[in-house]
């Protein structure tokens, strides 16, 4: 498998990347880790005439808390998340998800920004960021803008990024007492896309009442989706297994999976329900532990 020829441009600053992007327009593609784009190019499904390598742009690789916000630079690799002490201590959901993306070697190269910017509902970070109610920071030739994650996934393989935009940072409200998150997915084998994946970020008070909740789903909808109705069912209520079961049921109903080699639509709905129940419980366990 050999990709078609292209011209290569390495940007050392965002500005330089925009200049290349504006010059080559539709014929250009940004390349960060490359683990979504390069396989497509090797299959010659994608034959961009110009590749703009943004992986060397300085200052886009970090995981830090600042002003009550967890900030993740877009060029942070999945492995960076997996081995981040900060994530281990305070954001286990990010460790959960990074450990389930691709495989260990893929995670050394694949970036969080790339995973999101690809706009593929089968990728794992979209669901997690929906659950975490993240804010996506994009920068383009005309400056920086914030995109709430709910507005980011506009459609099928389509994000709110403007043509020359580069996703530069993901912002997540910093974790606090009573907050716990978890991600899990069912996959046919290691490295596969999720048959279904569920991300839950939950905040409870000392009486187990849900103060805040985010639930996102992977690969059971054409577009990464939040299960709003399940969130509404839980929010403000005291958590019980019955309620969690109800939330799971809603997740199974509200997703819109497509049958493929992984299984039928019914199967995916059913396991989404079960996975939602289990993941809420896991998040709850963590939330209680943080109180």
């Amino acid at each position, binding site marked *: 498998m050999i990709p078609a020829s292209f011209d*290569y441009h390495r940007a050392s600053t965002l500005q330089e990347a925009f200049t290349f992007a504006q010059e080559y327009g539709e014929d250009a593609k940004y390349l960060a880790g*490359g*683990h979504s784009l390069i*396989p497509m190019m*090797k299959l010659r499904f994608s034959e961009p005439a110009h590749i703009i*390598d943004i992986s060397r742009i300085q200052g886009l690789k970090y995981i830090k808390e600042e002003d009550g916000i967890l900030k993740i630079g877009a060029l942070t690799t999945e492995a960076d998340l997996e081995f981040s002490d900060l994530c281990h201590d305070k954001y286990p959901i990010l460790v959960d998800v990074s450990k389930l993306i691709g495989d260990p070697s893929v995670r050394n*190269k694949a970036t969080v920004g790339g995973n999101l910017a690809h706009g593929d509902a089968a990728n794992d970070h979209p669901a997690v960021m929906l659950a975490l109610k993240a804010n996506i920071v994009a920068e383009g030739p005309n400056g920086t803008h914030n995109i709430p994650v709910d507005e980011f996934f506009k459609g099928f393989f389509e994000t709110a990024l403007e043509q020359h935009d580069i996703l530069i940072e993901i912002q997540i409200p910093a974790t606090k007492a009573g907050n716990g998150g978890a991600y899990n997915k069912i996959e046919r084998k290691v490295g596969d896309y999720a048959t279904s994946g569920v991300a839950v970020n939950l905040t409870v008070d000392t009486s187990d009442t849900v103060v805040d909740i985010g639930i996102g789903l992977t690969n059971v909808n054409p577009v990464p989706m939040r299960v709003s109705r399940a969130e509404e069912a839980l929010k403000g209520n005291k958590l019980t297994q019955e309620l969690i079961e109800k939330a799971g049921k809603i997740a199974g109903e509200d997703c819109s999976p497509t049958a493929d080699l992984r299984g039928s639509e019914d199967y995916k709905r059913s396991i989404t329900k079960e996975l939602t129940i289990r993941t809420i419980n896991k998040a709850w366990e963590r939330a209680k532990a943080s109180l």
Partner: protein
Amino acid sequence: MKKEVTINVNGTSYTEEVEPRLLLVHFIRENLELTGTHIGCDTSHCGACTILLNGDSVKSCTIFTVQADGAEIATVEGMMQDGKYHPLQEAFKEYHGLQCGFCTPGMLMRAIDFLKHNPDPTEEEIRWGISSNLCRCTGYNNIVIAIEKAAEKMREVEVETVA
């Protein structure tokens, strides 16, 4: 349009003009004639092409050579130091962690990176740790054992590695 790249492989620096689309695995195998790094699947699933790029295990079939410009790369050919096997090489032989040998170089490179992050792993952790690499011959049992044993040895003695 060709690009000039300078890449350090196993301690030797190489400067060459390459087509941007030249895959790193082909650069290593064909331009540098280091054929220990293999190609098994082309889609980044099998791990036969695993090398260390600035110390991290990566699949060189899914990286363009131009992306590695300025990088330090280690391949299986760089594992021996002063004519001596790396503990992982030794353990793979001792515990029969290979059969046809085709996945072995990639498996070894992956194991180096894995043990760097987790020098005292459980069996389960090793299994997840090498899940990036397919082996069709060994059934993995002995690879897992070899990595366990090598880790033991590496905890005892400081090993100079290519990484």
